[in-house]
């Protein structure tokens, strides 16, 4: 290669010449960067504990609030991603670690978001004294806890289901652990991960109020953000402000969808092992821009080169190692048993410590009372899931069988799933007061507001996936009416329905904390249930009772999952599969 000043002369490559897309891309990218920088600087503003952060209801501050919320959710998503890969890799690589990590994840998943917040917030504030960053971190952590677990499960699942021959090919061509991770494991995890990220962000939005209005030792810190805005609007009973909040959230969610998830979803299709059907995937405009505009080309090339040099280094170190014995990693029998025993001991010790801790402030009878409260909430969850199923299954099937509508409906449903329940407090409160309704019953719909959409979503998907031949056959045999529902539609969508119902039920438990206490213009309507119990003691700041409430709630969720949903799921998977 020709050289000048010791450097090779490289002609400006044609592939880097700007295109029209660059005209659009450049300002967009620079704008995003600037917004990020501004938001970041706001995060670390000085702050002394006890200081009141004024939240304005002026609609003009809403865009700035929205931006700060979006940034929080973004960082939470980044943290969730890192956590997912690290945790899943550890659990998938070592059987010993798996025995500890996966059940732990199951428990973490059932802990309500408020539980994490009340326990960790003081620690975060102590971590960054004199700065808002501590509170910001606590909020981000709270959002993180509403996003990370299902993403981690999905990555773990993908790591465990790597196609055998691909693993062998990777070994045969002697990829290093690093190369294998990037070439095989991460790509394979991608499609499911992106899907779960979308779900997670919806969940994050749902709890945005809870995560931004943080209560520490009886004092509430409101971080500037759309969640706090909604909280204050509800407290003051300002309907107009609520309307603005809804509007801005709508815009933000649409932007998130357009700029992040549509492109990610389309891009992640490339990692699917098999293309399903012949459907030509839609190409979102933002992805087209990313792919056509040359500035990203250059960036991508740089990133790739960096990765490659890292990998070459690793390969060089590993070279020649092929024909050398490798040490055996298998543990002897007794060590395995010892490890099992250790896990059990740790679990029991944790439980004992928890009971002792709770006992310092709570008498035994209250334990029974809380279990009873849990049963009340359980009843509510069940009735609600049943009602939601009755309503949404027929509608979902109807939509799912009409592809043109189904496509649009899915986007709308996803959007609805992101709406925080708090936004509906005014409506519920107004109705309850105007018609003297029973709070025990009429607060319940709020619990399922956010989660019913999982049922709709999955039923639509299940109905859309029913093979065309099945419809022809049913038609041909003259199967219609109730018989058609019993023999064709319901069995056909059952596996998808169960998936949706599991998610909906889990989410409803979590939502009970927000939904069993309705506040509107200084009035409070409280329903009986474990959610109200936790919410109440979180306000008071009673650590023992919070711990008790959360533990009991977790036990309920895990119990129901194991005894009921898991079995239903197995039945669905075994008997009603389409293949």
């Amino acid at each position, binding site marked *: 290669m020709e050289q000048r000043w010791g450097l090779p002369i490289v002609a400006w490559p044609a592939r880097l010449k700007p295109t029209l897309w660059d005209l659009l891309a450049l300002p967009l990218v620079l704008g995003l960067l600037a917004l990020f920088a501004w938001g970041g600087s706001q995060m670390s503003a000085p702050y002394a504990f006890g200081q009141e952060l004024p939240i304005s209801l002026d609609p003009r501050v809403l865009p700035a609030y929205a931006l700060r919320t979006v940034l929080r959710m973004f960082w939470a998503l980044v943290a969730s991603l890192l956590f997912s890969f690290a945790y899943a890799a550890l659990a998938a690589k070592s059987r010993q670690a798996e025995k500890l990590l996966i059940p732990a994840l199951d428990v973490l998943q059932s802990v309500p978001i408020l539980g994490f917040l009340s326990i960790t917030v003081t620690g975060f504030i102590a971590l960054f004294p004199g700065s808002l960053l501590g509170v910001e971190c606590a909020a981000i952590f709270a959002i993180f806890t509403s996003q990370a677990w299902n993403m981690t499960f999905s990555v773990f699942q993908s790591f465990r289901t790597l196609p055998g021959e691909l693993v*062998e090919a990777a070994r045969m*061509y002697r990829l290093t652990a690093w190369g294998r991770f990037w070439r095989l494991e991460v790509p394979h995890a991608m499609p499911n991960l992106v899907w779960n990220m979308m779900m997670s962000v919806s969940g994050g939005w749902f709890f945005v109020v809870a995560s931004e209005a943080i209560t520490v030792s009886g004092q509430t810190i409101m971080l500037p953000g759309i969640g706090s805005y909604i909280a204050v609007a509800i407290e003051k009973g300002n309907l107009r402000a609520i309307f603005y909040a809804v509007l801005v959230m709508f815009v933000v969610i649409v932007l998130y969808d357009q700029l992040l998830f549509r492109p990610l979803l389309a891009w992640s299709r*490339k990692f699917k092992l098999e293309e399903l059907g012949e459907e030509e995937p839609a190409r979102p405009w933002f992805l087209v821009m990313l792919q056509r505009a040359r500035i990203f080309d250059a960036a991508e090339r740089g990133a790739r080169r960096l990765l490659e040099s890292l990998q070459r280094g690793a*390969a060089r170190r590993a*070279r020649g190692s*092929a024909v050398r014995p490798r040490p055996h990693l298998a543990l002897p029998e007794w060590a395995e048993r010892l490890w099992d025993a250790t896990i059990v001991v740790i679990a029991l010790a944790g439980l004992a410590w928890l009971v002792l801790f709770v006992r310092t402030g709570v008498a035994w009878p209250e334990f029974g009372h809380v279990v009873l409260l849990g049963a009340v909430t359980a009843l509510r969850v069940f009735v609600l899931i049943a009602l939601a199923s009755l309503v949404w299954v027929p509608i979902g099937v109807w939509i799912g069988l009409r592809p043109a509508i189904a496509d649009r409906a899915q986007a709308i449903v996803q959007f609805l799933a992101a709406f925080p329940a708090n936004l509906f407090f005014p409506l519920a409160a107004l109705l309850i007061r105007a018609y003297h309704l029973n709070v025990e019953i009429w607060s319940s719909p709020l619990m399922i507001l956010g989660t019913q959409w999982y049922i709709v979503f999955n039923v639509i998907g299940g109905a859309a996936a029913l093979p065309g031949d099945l419809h022809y056959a049913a038609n041909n045999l003259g199967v219609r009416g109730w018989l058609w529902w019993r023999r064709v539609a319901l069995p056909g969508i059952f596996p998808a329905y169960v998936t949706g119902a599991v998610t909906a039920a889990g989410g409803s438990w979590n939502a009970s904390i927000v939904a069993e206490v309705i506040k509107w213009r200084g009035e409070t309507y409280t329903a009986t249930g474990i959610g109200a119990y936790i919410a109440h003691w979180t306000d008071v700041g009673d650590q023992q009772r919070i711990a008790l409430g959360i533990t009991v709630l977790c036990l309920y969720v895990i119990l129901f999952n194991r005894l009921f949903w898991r079995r239903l799921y197995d039945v669905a998977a075994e*008997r009603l599969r389409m293949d």
Partner: protein
Amino acid sequence: MAEPVLMAAEAVSKSFKTPDRAGRLVLDNIDFRLKESEIVAILGKSGSGKSTFLRVLAGLIEPSSGRVLYRGNEVHGPAQGVAMVFQSFALFPWLTVLGNVELGLEALGTPAAERRERALAAIDLIGLDGFESAYPKELSGGMRQRVGFARALVVDPDILLLDEPFSALDVLTAETLRGDLMDLWIGRRIPTKGILFVSHNIEEAVEIADRIAIFGSDPGCIRSEIAVSLPRPRDGGSAGFRQIVDQVYALLTTSPGRDGGRRGAKAEPGIGIAYRLPAAPVQQLSGLIDALVEAPYHGRADLPHLADTVGLETDDMLPLIEALQILGFAHVGGGDIELTAAGRAYSEADIQHRKVIFGEHLVRNVPLAAHIRRILDDRPGHRAPKARFQRELEDHLDEEEADELLETIINWGRHAELFAYDYDSEVLSLENP
């Protein structure tokens, strides 16, 4: 032969752990050599452990005892200089053709420019030019396997290990690809010194190999070897070719029970209760009997010829032949198959009567069927859970094998109306639904 040895297996055994930790032997004391400028084919019925053996040689699976040598060095993991082509292609769907081919070089730490150049050359060599930027999804099966070959050849392998590389392709495509590979080999356009390939297609093996190793099962071992010294290119219709195909067929279809069936077998020639019955669909069995009765065979046929007529590949054919032998509907010897009197009676019967004959022979010749029937007869309610038999079989087989065996016997038993089976409750019974 004075050719140096490329790769050798010395007393290689492999056993996999079973739940009861007894260990299950899948490869038994195998000695094998691959010499320079030699193509060796490994043939055997499915489940005989031939793919496991290939993976042991590749360094993907560590043998339980014995050792594998590659040019005199002990192998403990995939070695540089040994490349493998997989049955299902094993392409990375998120990498383009070029990316997939470059992958092998990436791990070697080859600089980017050289990598690109060599990958393009390999793509060119295997006839994929023009598809460099395509994703595997966009390609047909044949083209995908070409990528698999290009990825293997780009590292300039000393030894090429092929795991049924053509079996996922249709006949025509497989033949073209095979021909192209042989052209490269004969023309010495690739630096590869030896090829070892696993196959289930007898004609394919005879066409390509210098030597064929016949694999016996339970546990896997090399039962015999045949040298193929026909001049290349080989004519599939020539007398010499047909003769070797016949010979291989004869070796592959020696009567069951004698086939090393040590595990679960009583004494030859009968079979034991846990004998791994061939998973032969009843429909195909009766179809084969019908074909055998009709012209031009009139009850007796040359196996390769028959396979050709009914359009079945070797590994679909072998289970059928074994099943007919076990049930006593046919005799096999010297590469020929002949219907027994029972087989002829079956062919002349109507549907209902066929079931009766099938049932009689099932009870008489298959100990597992007789056993199940006896248990059901003895039990007061004439019902027994499938798990009961599953547990019994797992004394001899691993879980998956026991599952497969039960599935086969349930299919046969249901057809013969020997017993009924309820999928939902997983219960075997005598009631007729």
